[in-house]
C-alpha cells in the first residue's frame, strides 16, 4: 500500500470504530425492556416481521 492508502485506512478506522460502538451502545440502551412480540408473517399479505 502507498502512504496515502495507509493514512486513509487509519483515519477511516478512527472514524468507523467510535461510530460502530455508538450504534451498538445506542441500540442496547434504547431497546424496549421486554422484547416486542413481532407479528407472524401472514400467509395472505406477506411481509412478516418476525425475527
Amino acid at each position, binding site marked *: *500500500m*502507498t*502512504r496515502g*492508502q*495507509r*493514512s486513509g*485506512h*487509519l483515519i*477511516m*478506522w*478512527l472514524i*468507523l*470504530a467510535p*461510530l*460502530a*460502538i455508538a*450504534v*451498538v451502545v*445506542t*441500540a*442496547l440502551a*434504547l*431497546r*424496549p425492556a421486554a*422484547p*416486542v412480540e*413481532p407479528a407472524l*408473517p*401472514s*400467509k*395472505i*399479505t*406477506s*411481509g*412478516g*416481521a*418476525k*425475527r
Partner: protein
Amino acid sequence: MSVRYTAVGWSRHKLVYDSIVVGAAVAFILSFVVISKVTFPGAHGVSDEVLVLRALGTCGFTLLTITLSIGPLCRLSPRFLPVLSNRRHLGVIVFLIALVHGGFATVYYHGFGNVNPLVSLLSANTQFNSIASFPYQLLGLAALVVLFLMAATSHDYWVKNLTQRWWKRLHMMVYLAYALLVAHVALGSLQVERNLLLPVTLATGLLCLAGLHIAAGIVERRKDRGYPQGGSPWIDAGLADTIPEGRARAIATSGGERIAVFRHQSALSAVANVCPHQGGPLGEGKVIDGCITCPWHGWQIRPHDGCSPPPFAERIQTYRVRVTAGRVEVNVQALAPGAATEPVPLRRQLQESTRG
C-alpha cells in the same frame, strides 16, 4: 501469477486452505445449532428454521471479522502471512454464507404471501424512526450487495481491468459492509435477544477488530516518518551486512513512500516497496528463484531491474544503491519503472569501505 486467464489457479495450498475454511464453517453451524438446542430446549428455544438462520448469520459475521483481522495481524507480525495469501477466498465464502442466510430469511419471512418476496422485503416495514422495529433487514441486504460486488470482482481479471488503484478503492467498501452488518445485528437480533452472550460477542469482535486496525495503522505511521534528507538525495539504510541474504530492509523516504533494499547473492538492489498486483509490501517478501516474491500473493519481480520475469510485463521503479563505510545508502530519486541497475556486490564494497 498466471500466464493465461483461469477461473481459479488451484494449487494444493489453496485446496487445503479452502477445505479447512469450509470444514470450519460447517462445524461452526452444526455446533451452533446443537449447542442452542441443548442449552435452550423446549418452549425456551426458537424454531429450527430461525436457529439455522442465526447459525448462518453468526458464522458469516464471524468469518468476516476474521477475514478483516488478517490484514492488520500481518502488519503487526509476519507470522500471519500464510493466511493472507488466500484472503479473497475467505471473502467469497463469507458472501456465499451471507447469500444463503439472506435468501433463506427472505423465503422464510416473505415467501408465503401473495406479494413478491423481494417487494415484501423492501416494503413490509417502514418504521425507520424506531430503534426496536427498525427495518434492519434492509441493512443486511445492502451489506449483501456490497459483498456481492467484492466477490464478483475478486478475480485478478478485475484487478487488471479496473487498475490496482480503483480495485483497491472498490474493495475498501468491505468496511462499509462490516459497518452495515454491525447495525443489522444491533437493530435486529439485539432488540429481541436478552441473552448477554450476543452483545458481549458483538462488542468484543468489534473492539478487537478496531483495535487491531488502529494498532497496525499507528505502527505503519511510525515507519512512514522517514529519514531526514537534507540536501543530499542519498539516505542511510543501515548497516549493509545486517540485511539477511534473500531478504530486504524497507526504508521510508521523507515523502513517506518506501523503498526495499534487497540482498541477493551478496549484492544489493533497491526497488519500490509496493507490489504492482495489489500493493503488497515487497520488502517483507524474499528472493525465490532470483526474483523478489511478494508475501501477499506470490507475484515476482527481478531485484536488479524491477521487471516481472517473462512472459509477464509488470514493472516497478528501481533505485541506485551504494555502500559507504559499511552502510547502505539509497538514492531516493526513483529511476523509471523497469530501469536496470547494477547490483552492488556487498563483499567488495565492504572491503573497499574498510580500506578507506
